């Protein structure tokens, strides 16, 4: 083992990591020290990652052009699967999913942008910022189903809202559309998809140098001008990332549509699930490929905006500051 590391070292007279350069003397330590710091470890891991994770995701697109017999794929190119998904799920499900996801994304953006601005630059209290910071981070690590299931007894026919409204005499009979309806699904999405919209916008705004804002003020700029000409252009990458991180998972959401929408509001995810359970893998793949195509189209602006601010390397640099 040790000799292998030494051989590798002799082939590469310059240590691969400039920072650890001459200080990282590996004589006599062999593979142990070499392994954890070398960028070859990263390349090795990346290879495994690409083969094990990215290849299956890419092959999905290939599967969508194949036929299935039982559990086997038949390697014969066809568009059958795409015809199947329009027959099976049909345009209504696809259009409804897109419409609901787009509407909620816009609502989130309208709520989240000013809020992120306030959180990043408005509030002067660190305690307030840390509190919201934690409140917005914790939901990522909670079970989506646990967070959603209780809406049923709040919004249901005999639920809390109906009981309160009835006892106050505002309504005489329970309102039905509070649950298992499209408005209910919209409402159910707003809470869970707020943090993924706030986070990227918040990060991009907090990376704006305060001196820029002060300079704008000192030069007599009205806050509205500062917002329009400095903050919004610099926050665009965050906004685009927020849209991607909200819209994409919402399209594939399994929980909210099922628990709050019941069987009445079918979305794409349930169609993919149904297609796989009936073993129409090609059609399921076509459906997923369709979602992927949408995501790719959505990501183009993200890639372009990140390029325009100097790429991901710039984000690294700002992290280090």
């Amino acid at each position: 083992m040790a000799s292998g590391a030494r051989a590798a070292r002799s082939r590469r007279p310059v240590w691969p990591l400039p920072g650890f350069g001459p200080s990282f003397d590996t004589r006599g330590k062999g593979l142990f020290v070499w392994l954890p710091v070398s960028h070859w470890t990263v390349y090795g891991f990346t290879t495994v990652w690409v083969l094990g994770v990215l290849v299956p995701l890419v092959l999905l697109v290939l599967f969508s052009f194949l036929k299935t017999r039982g559990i086997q794929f038949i390697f014969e190119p066809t568009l059958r699967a795409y015809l199947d998904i329009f027959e099976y799920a049909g345009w209504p499900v696809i259009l409804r999913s897109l419409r609901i996801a787009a509407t909620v994304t816009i609502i989130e953006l309208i709520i989240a942008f000013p809020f992120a601005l306030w959180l990043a630059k408005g509030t002067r209290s660190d305690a307030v910022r840390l509190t919201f910071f934690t409140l917005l981070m914790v939901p990522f690590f909670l079970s989506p189903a646990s967070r959603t299931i209780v809406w049923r007894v709040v919004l249901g026919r005999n639920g809390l809202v109906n009981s309160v409204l009835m006892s106050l005499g505002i309504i005489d009979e329970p309102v039905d559309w509070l649950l298992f309806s499209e408005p209910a699904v919209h409402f159910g999405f707003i809470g869970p998809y707020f943090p993924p919209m706030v986070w990227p916008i918040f990060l991009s705004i907090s990376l704006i140098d305060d001196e820029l804002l002060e300079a704008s003020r000192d030069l007599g700029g009205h806050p509205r001008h500062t917002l329009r000409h400095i903050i919004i252009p610099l926050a665009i990458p965050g906004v685009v990332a927020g849209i991607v991180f909200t819209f994409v998972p919402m399209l594939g959401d399994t929980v909210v549509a099922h628990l709050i929408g019941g069987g009445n509001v079918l979305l794409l995810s349930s169609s993919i699930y149904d297609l796989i359970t009936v073993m129409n893998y090609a059609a399921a793949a076509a459906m997923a490929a369709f979602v992927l195509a949408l995501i790719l189209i959505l990501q183009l602006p993200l890639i372009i905006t990140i390029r325009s601010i100097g790429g991901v390397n710039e984000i690294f640099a700002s992290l280090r500051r």
Partner: protein
Amino acid sequence: MTGGGYPSQRIATWLTVAVGSFAVFLIYAPIVWLGVMSVSERPLSGIPWPLGSVWYDELFRDTRKWLRPLELSLLIGVMVAACCVVSATLVGRALPRMKRRGGLLMVFLLPLFFPGIVTGGAFFMHYKALLGLKMGVWSLVLGHFVWAFPFALLAMLVVTARFDERLTEAASDLGASAWHRFWHIEAPLLKPGIVASGFFGFLLSFNELPRSIFLRSGEITLPLHLWAESSSHVSSVPLIYAMSTLITIASTVLTVIALRMLFFGRRASF
């Protein structure tokens, strides 16, 4: 810049905070209400009274149904956490100093752009239908790891991107061995990232549902168990409330500990 002299601006600020707080309220209201309903004797009535711990008693009286799923979820969670710690440490230490870090980071973050159900379906088709492998614990671990690793890596990068290499150089000049430099200088400084990536890995695996649906093949994790119960018969729903409350409390505590470790001491630079 907000909250300045203009009255209209002050109103706008208040409105912003009020609406944003309402969105946060929409996240936490159902969680708190879940806790309240779990100590209600008749949770399906919509009104919490009368209160009582009957469902918790019931939950712990008959542990047969959920003990196996809990054990499996704990096992998978620990395995995913271990994978996350090791790989996030290996990659996270080297990545900020590499030339192609931007592109590599994108490669690792790519799965975040795929809805869970698409990832689950793709893995199922690739590993089972194409390669003919039998799904089981390994595929659950793989699916959860793919979901958790980007988060673990980001947590690690928060720490490693700020790591000052002069520290290890100084230690080296003072005669510390490579092992000493790692164990006594680097590891303590990276500890928050290591702990956070482990916690995040565990929690994301422990609560994962959409990928598990496809990758389980007969195995039942806790979220799958709760999911099946909540979609089926009504009588066991109150039990789900009690159990979900316990899981949520445990997850929240772990997350807050991890976040405090990761960001504590550093004055919020955001």
